[in-house]
C-alpha cells in the first residue's frame, strides 16, 4: 500500500497561489458541485492538512466569524470535526443540539432557522434526520449553510474527505475502482460518494443484499453486485458502511451473523480486491458486523486517516464559503 504522500499531490495539478473565489453560497449537496469545484475543495483541503499537523494549529482566516453547529441528531465525530475545523480557523463556534424536529413537539425547523438567523451567524452547519431539511433551512437564513448530513440524502463533506483520503493514498482518483458495500438504501454517504466519484470518472460499484439496494441505483453506480466477492474483484478501494442495528432484527435482514457471513469484510473477501486496496469506513464501526476487527485495525485500513482528512476538508469548506473579509 502506498504511503500517504503529503500535501502536494493533486488531481488537476496543484494550485500554487490563492484560490479563485468559490462560487457556491452553501454546501448542500455534491450534486450542486461541478467537477472543478470538487477539485478546488480537495486542493484547499490539501493545504489545510499541514495546519493541523503543526504545533500551533491555527490559520485564523475566519477570525471574527460566527459558526453555529446545529445538530438535530447526535453525531460525535462530525460535530467534533466541524467544531475543531472552525476553531482552528479562528471562528467563534457555538454547538447547538436540538431534539428531532417535529410539528407535534412545538417549534418547527423554519422557526428555529428564523431564530438562529436573528443571531447573525456567518455559517450554520446542520445535521437533520430528514432528507431536504438542510436545504429548507438554507432558504430561510441569510448566511452560508453546510449540510452535515440530511436523512438518507447527502453528506457532502464525508464524500470530500473520502476522496481526499483516496487521493493521498493512491496518488490519484481518476480511473480507480471503488467498491461501496453495505446498507446502500439508507446511506447518505453512498449518495454523496457516488455523485462525487462519478464526477471524477471513477468506476463505482455498490454491493448489498437486494433489499438494501434502492430503486434506480444502477443509474448512479457503474456496477451493482449482490455477491461481495464478485463485487470486490480488482477493487482499488473498499468502502464499508455501517449497518444500523434496527435493520438487523429480521426486518430488513435476518440476523447480524448472517449479514457478517455474506457482507462483512474479512480477510477472505478482501483478498478478492487488489493487493494494495485500501479499506475505508465512515464510522463509527460495528466491528464483527460489517467489518472484521483485524481488517478494521489492519494495514489496509485508512479509517483514522479519514478522520484526520475530515478536519482538513471541513476547514477547506468553511474557508471557501467564508472568505476573509467577506461581509454577509
Amino acid at each position, binding site marked *: 500500500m502506498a504511503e500517504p504522500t503529503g500535501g502536494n499531490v493533486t488531481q488537476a495539478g496543484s494550485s500554487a497561489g490563492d484560490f479563485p473565489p468559490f462560487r457556491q453560497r452553501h454546501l448542500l449537496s455534491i450534486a450542486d458541485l461541478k467537477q472543478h469545484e470538487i477539485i478546488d475543495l480537495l486542493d484547499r483541503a490539501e493545504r489545510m492538512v499541514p495546519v493541523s499537523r503543526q504545533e500551533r494549529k491555527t490559520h485564523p482566516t475566519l477570525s471574527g466569524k460566527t459558526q453555529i453547529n446545529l445538530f438535530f441528531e447526535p453525531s460525535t465525530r462530525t460535530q467534533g470535526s466541524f467544531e475543531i475545523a472552525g476553531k482552528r480557523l479562528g471562528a467563534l463556534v457555538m454547538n447547538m443540539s436540538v431534539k428531532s424536529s417535529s410539528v407535534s413537539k412545538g417549534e418547527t425547523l423554519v422557526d428555529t432557522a428564523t431564530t438562529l438567523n436573528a443571531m447573525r451567524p456567518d455559517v450554520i452547519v446542520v445535521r437533520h434526520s*430528514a432528507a*431536504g431539511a438542510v436545504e429548507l433551512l438554507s432558504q430561510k437564513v441569510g448566511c452560508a449553510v453546510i449540510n452535515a448530513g440530511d436523512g438518507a440524502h447527502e453528506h457532502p463533506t464525508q464524500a470530500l474527505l473520502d476522496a481526499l483520503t483516496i487521493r493521498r493514498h493512491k496518488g490519484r482518483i481518476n480511473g480507480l475502482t471503488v467498491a461501496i458495500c453495505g446498507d446502500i438504501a439508507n446511506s447518505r454517504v453512498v449518495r454523496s460518494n457516488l455523485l462525487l466519484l462519478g464526477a471524477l470518472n471513477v468506476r463505482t460499484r455498490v454491493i448489498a443484499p437486494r433489499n438494501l439496494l434502492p430503486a434506480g441505483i444502477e443509474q448512479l453506480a457503474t456496477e451493482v453486485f449482490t455477491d461481495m466477492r464478485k463485487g470486490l474483484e480488482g477493487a482499488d478501494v473498499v468502502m464499508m458502511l455501517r449497518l444500523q442495528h434496527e435493520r438487523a432484527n429480521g426486518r430488513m435482514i435476518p440476523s447480524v451473523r448472517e449479514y457478517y457471513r455474506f457482507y462483512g469484510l474479512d480477510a477472505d473477501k478482501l483478498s478478492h480486491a487488489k493487493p494494495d486496496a485500501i479499506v475505508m469506513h465512515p464510522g463509527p464501526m460495528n466491528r464483527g458486523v460489517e467489518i472484521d476487527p483485524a481488517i478494521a485495525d489492519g494495514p489496509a485500513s485508512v479509517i483514522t486517516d479519514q478522520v484526520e482528512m475530515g478536519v482538513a476538508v471541513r476547514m477547506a469548506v468553511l474557508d471557501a464559503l467564508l472568505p476573509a473579509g467577506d461581509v454577509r
Partner: protein
Amino acid sequence: MNRPLLIENARLVDPASGTDARGAVLVENGVITDLALEGPIGVPDGAEVIDAAGHVLAPGLIDMRVFTGEPGKEYRETLQSAGEAAAVGGVTSFVMMPDTSPVVDDGALVDFLLRRGKATSKVNILPAAAITKGLRGEEITEFGLLQEAGAVCLTDGRSSIQSSALLRTAMSYAANYDMPIVHHLADRGLVGDGVMNEGFFATILGLKGIPREAETIPLARDLQLAALTGVRYHAAQISTASSAELVRAAKARHANVTAGVSINNLALNENDIGRYRTFFKLATPLRSEDDRQAMIEALRNGTIDTIHSDHDPQDSEVKRQPFAEASDGAIGLETLLAAALRLVHSGEVDLLSVLRAMTIRPAQILGLPSGRIARGAPADLILFDPDYPWQVSETAIRSRSRNTSFEGARLAGKVMRTIVGGQTVYLHTYTL
C-alpha cells in the same frame, strides 16, 4: 320568484348528449327549461339575457373528492371558503370527504352538513359518509341511515381499509342500498414510511419510496370483492399504468366498477417535486411520466371515469416542513378546470372527454340529476373561456389554505361565470 335567465351566443358543450355546437339555454326557477342549438329560442318576458360571447357553456363541474377543514379544522377551510373556491373554479357540486373532526360517520352529522352547506356555501355540498366508524377500518357504519340522511356515497376518505373481510362485509351491505363504495387504495405495509413514488428520483433525494404495488395490490383485491358482492365500486384514485390495466380488465368482465384520477396525477409527475417542494407531497403520490401518460390514455379510452381535484387544504405550519415530515395534500378546486384544459390544449384529450369526466360521469355514479344540459336538469352551469391565459397567484386564492401544486403556473382557460340552481355565484371581473 327569480327572473328567467337566457344564455345565448354560447358554444354549448354537453358530454351527456355529445353536443358541441352553438346554442342557447333558458333557465327558469333554477331548472333548465329550454335549449336551442343553432336556432331561435323562445324568450319569456322580463328574462335576463346573457351574451356568452362564444364562450363554452357546460354543465357545472362535479368534484368527487374534496376535503374541508370544517368541522374541526376551520382554520384550514370552511364550507363557505371551500364553496367560494369551488365557484371560482367552476365546481358547482362537490363530494365532501368524511375525514373531519368529528368524522362523518353518523346520520345526524350528514344532516348538519347539508343544512350548514346550504346556509353558507355557494355551491352544492354533497356529504360522503364513512364506511367504518371513525375511519378506523374496524366496524361498518349505519349505511341505510346515512343514506336516508343524504350521504351520496360511502368512503373512508384518505384511509384505506386493510381487512379484506371487513371490506367484503361493507361491500355486501352497501349493495343492499345501491350505495357506491369509493375506496382509496393504499396497502399500509407497502406504503410504510414512503413519502413519494419509488424510483430513481426518490433514491437521489434520499426519500423513502412508495411502490406502485401499494396501489395495485389492494385494487386487485377490491375488484375481486366488487365482483363477488355486486356492489357499485369506485376506485377513488388510481395513478399507475398497472392499475389502469386492472380496471380495464374488470370492466371487460362486466364488473360494476368505475375509477377516478386526481388532476394532479394527470397534470404532474414526480419530477415536479424538484428539490423537496412539499406542495407536491401527495397521497396518492405523483408517479413517473410513463404512469402519467398511462392515466391520460386511460382517460381517453374510458377506463378512467372521473377526474377530481383532490382538494386538501393544509396550513403552512404543516407544509413548511422537511419533505418527509410535511403533511400530504394540495388544494385544487380553483385550478381543476384549467389544469384539465392543459390536456385539451396539448391535444392529448378532447374537450368532451375531459368535461365528461367532471360532469356526467360523476353525476351518474352518484345518481345526481345534474351534470348535463337538458330540459328539467338543475341549472348548474359554467361559462368559460377555454383560452383565457392566467397565472396562479397565491394572493388570488380563495381557499383558506395556500398549498396549491400549481403555484405560479401559467394556465389557459378561465371560468367567467358559475351558475348554481339558476343563480350566478361567481362572475369573473376582467382586470385591465
